[in-house]
């Protein structure tokens, strides 16, 4: 007789898979990738390829030689980490630094904890911040965006809007005076400004967000709470002293806020599990980002903010549980 398969229930599955989610995010990143290729040309190609290839390679090598377990490189998470790492660094970064960054991201940030699903911190950001602190010189030289450029290491460099703002304010210039030196909001929206390879085009990133929301890869809670918090906080500051603090739109469209809020803070592994927790997490990221940007030494703070809140995720998960059925009791009238 045909041997029957037995297993505990349920006997059907939604068909969702880790792979589908990861490749879904990669697809969502394609518009931003296109924008970065458009503005940074060869540099973007080199940086992206190096990061993706080395992340996947390191994951494979560590699993093969150190952990001696089954390889999971095909699930797309390493490639995604590589892609996001590439999106977070200048497109003229020397290859050897990118390789170190990938090693740190995958080796320290992910595989030391046992691989996919175990890492408390966002691997790509671990890699990025490690590089930022280790190689501050190279990590703060931003190539100027221009249509289809073919230079890589010797691309002309310029400051990011955020550092121009920070420098300007430090020199006592007023916000409006500095804004005149900067690209318009529309230009910022479509990515025509200096910055990391993948962070510049808010429009492209928002397309990715829409895609992920529709495919139900992520929920709105984290991105929305980050964006709203940043807008509200900078809005308040701006209202209190318009000459000292740039407005919300500026903060949202510059630097990595969009990339961070949409793609990095939402990383499943290092974000909270409950909706309430996600909102707390998002609000925390928003506040810390603004504090670092406005009061701290770094012009940009979202990477740090996400990492810091990653640290709090276990606490959030422990004390902020999803609403349980029957918790809010509506009993019968006695």
């Amino acid at each position, binding site marked *: *007789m045909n*041997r*029957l*398969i*037995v*297993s*505990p229930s349920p006997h059907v599955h939604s068909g969702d898979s880790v792979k589908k989610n990861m490749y879904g995010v990669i697809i969502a990143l394609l518009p931003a990738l296109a924008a970065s290729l458009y503005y940074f040309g060869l540099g973007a190609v080199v940086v992206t390829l190096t990061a993706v290839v080395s992340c996947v390679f390191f994951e494979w090598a560590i699993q093969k030689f150190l952990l001696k377990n089954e390889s999971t490189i095909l699930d797309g998470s390493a490639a995604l980490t590589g892609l996001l790492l590439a999106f977070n660094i200048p497109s003229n970064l020397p290859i050897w630094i990118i390789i170190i960054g990938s090693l740190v991201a995958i080796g320290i940030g992910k595989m030391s904890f046992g691989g996919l699903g175990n890492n408390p911190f966002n691997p790509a950001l671990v890699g990025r911040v490690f590089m930022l602190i280790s190689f501050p010189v190279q990590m703060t030289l931003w190539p100027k965006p221009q249509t289809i450029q073919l230079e890589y290491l010797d691309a002309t460099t310029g400051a990011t809007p955020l550092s121009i703002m920070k420098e300007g304010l430090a020199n006592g210039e007023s916000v409006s005076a500095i804004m005149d030196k900067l690209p318009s909001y529309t230009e910022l929206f479509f990515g025509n400004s200096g910055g990391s390879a993948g962070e510049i085009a808010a429009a492209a990133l928002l397309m990715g967000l829409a895609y992920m929301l529709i495919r139900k890869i992520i929920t709105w809670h984290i991105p929305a709470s980050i964006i709203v918090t940043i807008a509200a906080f900078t809005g308040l500051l701006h209202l209190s002293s318009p000459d000292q603090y740039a407005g919300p739109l500026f903060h949202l469209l510059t630097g990595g806020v969009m990339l961070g809020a949409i793609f990095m803070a939402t990383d499943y592994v290092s974000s909270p599990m409950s909706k309430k927790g996600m909102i707390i997490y998002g609000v925390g990221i928003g506040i810390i980002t603004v504090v670092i940007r406005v009061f701290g030494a770094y012009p940009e703070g979202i990477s740090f903010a996400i990492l810091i809140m990653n640290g709090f995720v276990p606490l959030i998960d422990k004390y902020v549980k999803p609403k349980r059925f029957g918790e809010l009791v509506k009993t019968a009238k006695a």
Partner: protein
Amino acid sequence: MNVVLITIISLGVLGALAAIILYFVAQKFKVFEDPRIDQVEEVLPAANCGGCGFPGCRAFAEAMVKSDDISALNCPVGGADTMKAAAEILGKEVKAADPMVAVVRCNGTCENRPRIAEYDGATSCTIASSLYGGDTGCSNGCLGLGECVDACAFNAMYMDKETGLPVIIEDNCVSCGACVDACPKNIIELRKKGPKNRRIFVSCVNTDKGAAAKKACSAACIGCKKCQKICPFDAITVENNLAYIDYNKCKLCRKCVAECPTNAIHIVNFPPPKPKVEKPAEAKAE
């Protein structure tokens, strides 16, 4: 010299103060921890496996120090040597506990026991056993998912891929009993290691009636009581269609072995058979 004087005075005052405070502290917080606990703990294997029935090696050490009669205590991992060493520290006597070893009481290899279904759930014997009796006709036998192997902290078990059954590596087994507790089917038993490591046991736990048992597994104990009748030492009892050999009574005469029609009785570590006719499939004698 002035400085030296001030130094001495201020330190002296401080010292005196500290002395007084600490004196009172010491009065209030008299805690006596027998230093022998540490010493005993030192000689214990530090496996913290719980095989002794205490939460950890330290708790066991405490128990040893505290109890007057330690004959009931035994660290299976360390064995007689450890117990002797510990007893020496305490100046107490140990009776050498009989060394034990785990045995797997199921011989439902893929050959003996045809599979009638294919399990596709979580790899856990407990989960599988809460779902159904198993993927063979025998609902008592080993499920083959290796929960016992995972439980063993001493690398003394592995799953034999051919037979689908766990195998105990006698030399590594410290008889901690973790596997016994882990198995939801109560298949593993700790038995006396026996003289020259020789022992005899019924390798089956099936309680079905003879025909059903036989149908499910060709090596099953069918409860025919032949062994019981032949045993000169009354070591064998048959209950619920299943024979059991009491290791305290068994004198290893091997009469029952040949008697068993299904070869359900296993012998371990005996020299190879002399002229005798065919031998039961000795699965785990090696």
